[in-house]
């Protein structure tokens, strides 16, 4: 280990491998293993454990710290005993992860993914017992989706990789008394706002409106129209039409709805005045980080826990216990009570949209960006930028498809081994997957000095809204550092699998059993966006999106300019170190941009002007118009059929095209460009303003 406690790659020794296999014992119950035997007298089991309850988090931390002071072997023995005593307990799993993370010997060891060790949080009972298909046919799925539109996004919300990303993020950025990471509050805001952006992106693809906030003064006192059934053991369903209770209690701590309302006003007042009041009564300036710590709400680093309370966590508690706020009927908690399951519930996004209102209020008060802020790396010019699909054969795409600036998604299957606690293989049928792609950039450094550029890649759906509105839809795809020699043209090909947003391939239980360990490869925090959800699903007819890339100066931006951006740093930071990028998170879409001269008197920048300005004024930025197509099962089948008869006019056949050609006149790729009919129609279809028409 390096001095700073940061992760430094080194070659794994055989001891590491053995230790890693032993660590598995803390996560997998052994029916013949030892039982808990009073060897840890301070241990206290928490039956209704929740990640959003500060008292629970404090207890866990205390126990984990105690454990991490023991010798490594002893700690693992105790954890294995606990696991055998409570084989399906979420609490024990959480404790093991925290304790292992705190112990210096095991800090950088691989831990198995949570969806393998506590599958009850990720897969519904029926899937775990091989009965999912039956359930879906018993209840008419189509009817279900018609009545509950949120059901159409269940594949996204309930993706196991996504759930474990959110859970692991909260695991490594706890709000308890642990030492706070630098910029943790800001990352709290950024990670969740990116979840919202991605969720909204998927919603727009389905023709839904963007998610609406739900919280005090946003429908908080009216019934929640839609309910949600997590179908997980140990969780209860929420019926439609439930109200937020005036207070709720998860065992000891009682949470009051009125407190949240008051704290909301206090915090909003602070943001608008520009200062918060700390616990000594002094004024401290509002920053994104301070705001994030107040909201999350960090027990020791919140500016004033007494005054600004615990808005984010308490909202989770109130929503989760709306059916049984006093624990009278012994009703299980709702999905919102657990960080691994909270993001499955549609109301999670409404709640976080509300939390984001605080951040938005603050962002609005910040200085707006101008061309100078964008032009952050002089003399570097991005000459061309596009996406390509290089590994065409691997995915068996038809030959006629245009693979440039076209991305494809489909719904696939994933077979996962779960330990329930016996090992069991299940097949999740609804996993969205994408066809692997790369960004291809041609960059030239016109300067006389070598430069180190950091490329920031964002994806935005095509929209007619002004910049200040669509800014929130910008989804970060990648951030990477490339050295550019003076006067050199360079072609950069960056694969999606290297993205700094996504979680690098994890080591599963099977891998660890075979003796693999993450020492020597990548940091093993388990936090990171799942690769299969990196790009939104798009639409069957092709969804028009734009990908922006901006190069900025890594020598200025980087905390350590010698080091690149390895692992899933964008949403999860760097394990044990500071956030490596000094810029505000989400730069350059973290706040509004004005170009100085706009056609709109209000100063609003719309997309065409924005693009124009990028091309004209910001040589170190580029934009690509990318079509994201969702290959539905029906389309793939039709495609295969078309392949058989060698008929190239697949799109004409499979999509109901009954408009006249004149309707396509506003499509900017004019039909005369192409002599191929198929391509023409496809382009035209993809340019239909699907949801803003």
């Amino acid at each position, binding site marked *: 280990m390096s001095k700073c406690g940061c992760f430094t790659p080194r070659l794994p020794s055989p001891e590491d491998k053995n230790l890693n296999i032993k660590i598995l014992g803390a996560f997998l119950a052994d029916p013949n293993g030892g039982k808990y035997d009073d060897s840890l007298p301070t241990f206290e089991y928490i*039956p*209704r454990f929740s990640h959003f309850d500060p008292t629970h988090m404090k207890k866990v931390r205390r126990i984990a710290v105690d454990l991490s002071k023991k010798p490594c072997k002893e700690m693992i023995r105790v954890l294995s005993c606990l696991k055998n005593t*409570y084989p*399906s*307990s979420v609490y024990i799993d959480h404790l093991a992860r925290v304790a292992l993370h705190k112990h210096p010997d095991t800090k950088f060891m691989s831990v198995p993914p949570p969806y393998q060790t506590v599958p*009850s949080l990720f897969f519904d*009972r029926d899937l775990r*017992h*091989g*009965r999912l*298909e*039956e*359930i879906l*046919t*018993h*209840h008419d799925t189509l*009817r*279900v989706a018609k*009545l*509950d539109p949120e*059901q159409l996004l269940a594949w996204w919300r309930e993706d196991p990789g996504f759930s474990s990303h959110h859970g692991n993020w909260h695991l490594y950025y706890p709000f308890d008394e642990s030492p706070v990471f630098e910029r943790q509050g800001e990352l709290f805001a950024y990670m969740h706002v990116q979840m919202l952006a991605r969720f909204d992106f998927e919603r727009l693809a389905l023709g839904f409106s963007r998610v609406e906030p739900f919280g005090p003064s946003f429908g908080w006192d009216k*019934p929640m*129209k839609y*309910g*949600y*059934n997590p*179908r997980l*053991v*140990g969780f*209860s*369903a*929420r*019926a*439609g*039409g*439930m*109200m937020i*209770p005036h207070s709720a209690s998860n065992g000891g701590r009682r949470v009051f709805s009125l407190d949240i309302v008051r704290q909301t006003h206090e915090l909003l007042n602070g943001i608008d005045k520009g200062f918060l009041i700390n616990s000594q009564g002094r004024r401290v300036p509002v920053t994104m980080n301070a705001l994030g710590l107040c909201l999350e709400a960090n027990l020791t680093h919140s500016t004033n826990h007494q005054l600004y309370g615990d808005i984010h966590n308490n909202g989770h508690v109130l929503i989760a216990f*709306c*059916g*049984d*706020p*006093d*624990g*009278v*009927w*012994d*009703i*299980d908690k709702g999905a919102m009570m657990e960080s691994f399951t909270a993001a499955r519930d549609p109301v999670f996004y409404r709640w976080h949209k509300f939390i984001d209102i605080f951040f938005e209020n603050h962002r609005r008060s910040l200085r707006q960006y101008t061309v100078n802020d964008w032009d952050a790396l002089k003399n570097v010019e991005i000459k061309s930028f596009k996406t390509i699909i290089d590994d065409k054969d691997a995915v068996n795409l038809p030959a006629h498809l245009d693979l440039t600036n076209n991305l494809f998604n489909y719904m696939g299957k994933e077979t996962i081994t779960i330990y329930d606690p016996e090992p069991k293989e299940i097949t999740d049928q609804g996993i969205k997957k994408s066809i692997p792609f790369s960004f291809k950039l041609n960059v030239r450094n016109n300067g006389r000095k070598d430069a180190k550029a950091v490329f920031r890649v964002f994806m935005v759906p095509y929209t007619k809204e002004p910049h200040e509105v669509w800014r929130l839809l910008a989804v970060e795809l990648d951030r990477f550092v490339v050295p550019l020699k003076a006067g050199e043209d360079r072609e950069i090909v960056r694969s999606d699998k290297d993205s700094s947003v996504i979680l690098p391939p994890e080591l599963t239980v099977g891998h660890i059993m075979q003796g693999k360990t993450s020492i020597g490869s990548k940091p093993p925090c388990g936090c990171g966006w799942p690769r299969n959800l990196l790009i939104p699903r798009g639409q069957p007819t092709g969804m028009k999106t734009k990908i922006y890339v901006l190069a900025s100066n890594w020598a200025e931006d980087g905390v350590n300019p010698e080091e690149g951006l390895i692992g899933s740093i964008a949403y999860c930071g760097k394990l044990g170190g500071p956030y490596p990028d000094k810029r505000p998170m989400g730069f350059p879409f973290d706040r509004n941009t004005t170009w100085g001269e706009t056609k709109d008197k209000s100063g609003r920048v719309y997309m065409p002007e924005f693009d124009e300005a990028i091309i004209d004024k910001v040589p170190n930025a580029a934009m690509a118009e990318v079509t994201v197509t969702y290959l539905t099962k029906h389309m793939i089948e039709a495609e295969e059929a078309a392949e058989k008869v060698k008929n190239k006019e697949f799109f004409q056949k499979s999509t109901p095209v009954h408009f006249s050609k004149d309707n396509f006149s506003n499509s900017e790729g004019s039909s005369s460009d192409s002599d191929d009919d198929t391509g023409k129609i496809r382009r035209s279809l993809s340019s239909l303003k699907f949801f803003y028409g």
Partner: protein
Amino acid sequence: MQLRMAPAADGCCHHSQSSKELRGKILKAFLYDSKHKSFQDLKDGAFSIKDHLKDHKNVDATVKELKIAAKPDFSVFIEEDMREIQRISDQLQRKPINNVINAFRYLRTACPNSTFVDHLARVTFQNHPASRNVPLPAPHQIMPFTFFKRGKVVAAQRSIPGVDNLVLELTDPNKMLQDGDILPTSAKFDKERRIAWWREDLGMLTHHYNWHIAYPYPPKQPRDRQGELFGYMHEQMLARYDFERIAVGLNRVQPYGPGFGWDKPLVEGFNSQLAMCSVRGANSNLSSSNTYYIGKGVPNTISLDDMKRYKDRISSAIAVGFLYKDAQNKVMLDLKDGMNHLGNTMQANQGSVNKTLYGNLHNNGHVILGRINDPSGMYQIPPGPMNYDQAAPRDPVFFRWHKFIDNLFEEHRSNLPYQNVQDLVFDGISIESFSVKLEPSEDDKEKLEKSKVFSETENHFYTHMENKWYKIYNSNATEEGGDSDYSSASVSQKALNHIPFSYEIKVKNDNKHEQNIVFRIFLAPEIDEGGPLDHSRTMFVELDKFVVSVKKGTKTIKRQDNQSSVILNPQPTVEDIATKDGPLRGDCMCGWPLNLLVPRGTAAGMRGNIYVMASDWNKDGQDPYSGMEGSASYCGKQGAKYPDKRPMGFPFDRLVVNRDGSSPVGTLGEFVEAVPNSFSEKVTITFLDKWPIQEKREDAKRASRQRDRQKGE
């Protein structure tokens, strides 16, 4: 004593002279068979009940022919489900009995936890000519997961690979510690929990379940006075429930239904802790959706507005005194048949006067309240207990809903001609005394002597809670030394019981000839609400109704509590059916449990009134030579007319007025004074046990003390 008892063969329901062999075979059709040959070659996940008809090669021939498949979320309150049961059952009744048995052995093993299969089996065997007289096993033994709470049936669901199962998982080890009755922390908030022991009594639940099997609605024609009995049976459940509520300091049950607050959120939540039922949160909003999906037939929806309309139509029919059969014909709601027509219409059986106009009020209410969590099935939340006749009375809202139904009956009753006391007089007959005598067994005597509250043996009921053991089948739980073929387990549950007692009635016959007298015994709590007797009329609980013939002169009649006409006689258990030789008596299993015959009362002694009335059985009885044997009061007699011609609940079925014909009778005392052939006596009901809360605390203290001692050692 010359009781003109009917011969034993004339009981409530048939009883059986069945051969032991057939009995055993039919029993097997109710037991999950892990060695069933059809399932031996199955691997994990290879079998899905949905596909078994087309894919599974070992499927039973009869099952395949009739296309029987398990129905998820089956409910007796959904008409379409009942028609399906009837359709299949009618066809099965024409098949040889061996084929039927084989079909059910297959189905039981394929879908061991299907309430649909269980219901179908019971209906089929009860009606099949070859098995009509065969006693069937008790439902709580066969379907334990529908009658015992999660903590009771510890992981007791069996799972053969891939088969349609409900899997019980106990994630929280603390839940296993909770006993079946009061939870000390929660009872403070949820007052309804105070009488959870009553709502969860197995005898009461099986009574309700079997009543609905014995009195089905479509597509069969209703039985004799079915509608009236529907009203009366549920009204008596309410009366008994109110009695228990008053004893624990709760108010009488409040109605909940269209026009009675169901457009506002339902304050009470409920968690049945049954594996098949979902929980209901506090303030669940029934009106969050106006449309409720019921079944898959057409129309498959019912709206709250529809329910309101049906209720208003029935209300106005009661007000004008007739129901519309069609545009021209009216059905009068008179004294004789009015209750029956109204009951049939509300139960919406084939006797409903006009189903299009008056709808399916009672059943749809059950379905709507059962689906309050998920009106359109869009979240795939399973229904709540109100959806299942086995589980519905566990839910406090069941009684609130039935209070609403009963209010409609009460509206009708208030329109009927008053009952004049002079019509109740039985000339020449007078009751000189009436008392309740304790008849404790040796154990009971000990119990009484131990308790400090025991004071007198006359006109005093004593109740206590006792641990009852039940043997359950079709579960994974096995105990050592159990039946080797079929795994069984024992579970215990606390239930109320009382010290046995008998009634002693001294009756005087001044007439010259022998009289056939029916005695009607009721119990009501003493209340201080004031007002005429009519205010507490619906609180009279029927305890017994029996026929005795009395010669001229005075006679003392003694009647045991376990002879009561409301209770269910002891039924053969699975073990009896399997092992006992010789004929075995099996009733239709409908009947009030003996252990709940007397309400629990209070520890300090709850005051009540016991009332008896004698009337002429030659006039009242359907057949003067047979009495009210079996559990005829609440369940009638199978294959025969309801034995008592009087309105059910007589003489408390409607307002009683004095001889002047208009002023209502003020008190029970006045009533007895005016009617010499009746008698009332004050009684006290004392609950011998302590509050379970205290008991629990003491248990916990004792346990912790023991732990400390062990640690010290």
